[in-house]
């Protein structure tokens, strides 16, 4: 703890800096020690629990893990695929529904009612029910193959549910744009449509990117619900392995794969949100 050497050209640290550095070192030490203590406690104490051997065999079984993990990865590609076509569809439909709630034309009034009802219904029903009802129900009307595929109708169920949420996010974004922006655009003679499309929406969409990132993360996990109507994606594949081996380790493997995707995505969403807070302040 010395003041920077004289004559070295470096500016000496202020008294405040020296004091704060000391504080920082101390709090780092405390945080590090307590973290190590907690981790050690978990690592050392949990195995002492009487059922640990059984739990380890059922949930953390290396033989089962290594036998099933590669196939779980393969099955995860199906999740990725479903996600890849659902996400853009959700963005488009969510935006359309958000905009439909703003139409002024009386002839289009049914559209407003419809979009309001749509968001109420699909936000109110558990996703898995929607997946069941649409995934089995609509093909049951007698559609020919391949148009009755559970991939199509299960995806539609996800798209409808998530669009309802995303539409609300877009709406909150639109409403968060200060009315003065609309006034400025209208004072220039821009039509309502142009005002929305060129002035309001670009700002609104940017503002809700973090919220929508969180929806994407949730969607990534809910894709697994399609397994209920047939597709053998990672969750189902893990379930099949679970029955085959009478062992839950495949579920742990699936969880690892999900986490590998969602943790970085969550961090990124948090980063975007923090950045936005900084930018606005």
């Amino acid at each position, binding site marked *: 703890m010395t003041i920077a050497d004289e004559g070295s050209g470096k500016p000496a640290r202020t008294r405040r800096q020296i004091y704060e550095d000391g504080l920082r070192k101390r709090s780092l030490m405390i945080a590090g020690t307590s973290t190590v203590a907690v981790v050690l406690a978990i690592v050392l104490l949990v195995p002492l629990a009487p059922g640990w051997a059984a739990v380890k065999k059922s*949930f953390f079984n290396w033989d089962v893990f290594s036998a099933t993990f590669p196939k779980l990865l393969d099955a995860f590609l199906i999740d990725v695929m479903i996600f890849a076509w659902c996400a853009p569809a959700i963005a488009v439909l969510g935006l359309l529904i958000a905009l439909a709630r703003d139409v002024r034309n009386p002839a289009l009034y049914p559209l407003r009612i419809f979009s309001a009802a749509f968001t109420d219904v699909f936000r109110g029903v558990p996703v898995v029910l929607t997946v069941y009802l649409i995934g089995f129900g609509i093909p049951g009307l007698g559609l020919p193959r391949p148009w*009755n595929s559970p991939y199509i109708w299960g995806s539609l169920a996800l798209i409808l549910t998530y669009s309802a949420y995303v539409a609300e996010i877009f709406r909150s974004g639109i409403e968060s744009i200060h009315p003065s922006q609309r006034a400025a655009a209208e004072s220039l003679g821009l039509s309502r449509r142009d005002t929305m499309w060129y002035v309001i929406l670009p700002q609104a969409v940017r503002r809700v990117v973090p919220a929508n990132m969180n929806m994407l993360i949730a969607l990534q996990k809910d894709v697994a619900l399609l397994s209920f109507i*047939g*597709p*053998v994606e990672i969750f189902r594949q893990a379930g*099949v392995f679970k029955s*085959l*081996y*009478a062992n*839950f380790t495949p579920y742990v493997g699936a969880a690892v794969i999900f986490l590998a995707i969602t943790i970085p995505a969550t961090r990124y969403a948090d980063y975007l949100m923090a950045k936005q807070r900084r930018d606005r302040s």
Partner: protein
Amino acid sequence: MTRLIVAGALALMGTTAVAGGHLCYEGKTLTEGKLTIATGNPAYYPWVMDDAPESGKGFEAAVAYAVAEEMGLSAENVVWVRTSFDEAIQPGAKNFDINMQQYSITPERDQMVDFSEPYYAAPMAALAVGAVSETEATLDALKGLKWGAVGSTTGAQKLINTIQPSSDPLFYNDNNDVIAAMQAGQIDAALFDLPTALYLSAVVLDGGTILGQFPADRADTPDLFGMLMEEGNPLKECVDAAIMSLTESGELAAIEAEWLQDTTGVPLIQ
């Protein structure tokens, strides 16, 4: 065939429930003097009739009471509980002594839990609906169908290992979902154990047909149903002894004839 071998083996071992003046199960059950048996929720025909195992009606219910009696427990000392498959295999204390829900004995499962001697050898059968009902009962013809199965059953394994369908099969949570997918035209056919398939085709699925059954000796893992117990359960020897004795005496075959008699006459898949 399998049953004969099992019966032969049992005859050699010659066991009884009573050994040295005290009953085998004593001190080994969850509740002293009671045998707690788990079934599914709901339990399906023809394994348990009307979802009421207490009636002793249905194949598994009848076997359960016969085994209890053989072990020296009267009917009123049998207690029923319900579990899912996951509850049956989870580590930790169990809420049942034995669990009967058409569990197929596999070597992989056997590493995690204990199984009793088999009480039934279930052939797998293919249930189909609609236009494909006329499909020939040959593996080649069956490969081309769109297949489904309950994901947690050995049917799912057999589908992949034996039929090897040309398009990816779809797997479901339970029988009802498989039927829903068949009714929606999303799959042509599904694999069940034969009694279940017969029940579904007769009662649940309009226009359902059994295409054929897999002869037990053609399967790489013949589906033998065993009672599931916690790994290392000391009760196993008592249950095994009871089942072997029932097999030996022909009582098990009689129960099977009473509840599962329709299973004969279904063509074999070549």
